């Protein structure tokens, strides 16, 4: 069981718990504003962009090559950016805080 916290662009804090599936699906299922997941999680749409809290990057790891490429020209990209469809829920993520990108 992992506790995952989303902070939306309106500063709404949403704490969720899950055991499996992708972080994007978790967000969509719980109506987290700003996470649309239009491509269904195959890294094609970039509508699942989050910034990992810097001190939590050890939990998530950094973005893969395709995530970096998809976000390269995004105005809001940072070194903590991830496309959260590429993050699988697992115990390793427990306690992570994700800021939904604008």
């Amino acid at each position: 069981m992992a506790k995952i916290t989303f902070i939306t662009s309106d500063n709404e804090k949403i704490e969720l718990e899950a055991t499996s599936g992708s972080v994007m699906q978790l967000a969509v299922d719980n109506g987290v504003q700003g996470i649309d997941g239009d491509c269904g999680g195959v890294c094609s749409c970039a509508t699942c962009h989050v910034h990992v809290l810097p001190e939590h990057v050890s939990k998530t790891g950094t973005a893969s090559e395709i995530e970096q490429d998809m976000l390269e020209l995004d105005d809001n990209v940072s070194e903590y950016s991830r496309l959260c469809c590429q993050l699988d829920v697992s115990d390793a993520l427990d306690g992570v805080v994700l800021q939904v990108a604008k």
Partner: protein
Amino acid sequence: MSANKTCVVIGASHGGVNFGTALRKEGWEGKIILIDKDPEIPYHRPPLSKAYLTSPLGIEAYQLKSKESYVKDSIQLKLGVSVNSIDKEKQELTLSDGSVQSYDILVMATGARPIIPPIKGIKTATNLYPLRTAKDVENIQTALLNASTKDVVVIGGGYIGLETAASLKKMGAEVTVLEREERILARVTAPEMSTFFEELHSSNNVSVLTTKNVVAIETENGINTVVCADGTSYKASVIVVGVGILVNTELASSIGLTLENGIKVDETAKTSNATIYAIGDCSYHFNPHYNRYIRLESVQNAVDQAKVAAAAICGKKTVYNTIPWFWSDQYNVKLQMVGLSQGYNQVLMRKEEDLKFSIWYFKDETLLAVDAVNNAKAYVVGTKFIKENATIDKEKLVDTSVVFKPAELLKS
């Protein structure tokens, strides 16, 4: 103001569902009712021919939104019922369960349905299915599991046919794709891409055969023989038909909405009737960037039009102006496409590796579209260039020693 009003949507898929959510977000206070004849909680369609076909998971794993999110947004789902007719004067719909549903605003998100071509014997063929719904996937999976042989024929070498072939191969089937044209993906890509995908399939032991016009299907003891015009024939326990779609315009036509290769809409997705909007696969709409009317079959288009229609209904001035994009996943290849290549007179290739390259479609100096294979960077750079009507230095573009950054590739 909208509190006592009812907005009804026919079709609860990518278009309808995203519209419902967007309308609530825009501040609509009245009822939102989504009606769909498909009984399942609305799901993503693209995975049907990709991951879902090979997946042991149920369709619930591919829901567009969870059940709870509809409740949270007060969006009412009426699933498993069809809209049979519309009375535009009374603003009422008659549903297949006999009930009547009135509306103040109506949205047609009726999408499209697969074409089943009039091939001799197609109606009596065994285990022959299109691929558009979760039910179709279930039928194909069950048929393959129970079939006496693993021979599958896919009729049609478009994206859906090719993705299905790749997925069925993964499931242990022996797959033959029969394409009528001289090359696969002929309508949508350059010959270079067709060749690439033909080779990709053949290296995965799927035979992709072109100039194969299927003229008859003969069925005996549960085995089909698919016969082509050139006299060749192919045995199949299961047949998947992927030869294109027909737009669901019957309801629109019955009330006299303007039709033209789909339901014709203005830049806010409004039809010729001021209380009726049309979005997604069923709409024939204007694309300002390419300066022409088009009809698109893509998630992007359904989602973006949904947002535009929702904003317009809530009195905001947003107009539809996006560059189309699309993707396809086959084996280890991720294809991402942006723009519309129609009308190109030059094709350039930038090749990083055998399985990592991009095709750039130009009309003279104007970049029209990009097909990127395992190359998200080309996809995003291409998107930026198309949006900005950038003038590109073509020599640098194809030279992989030049850093792949927009600023490096512009004509100075």
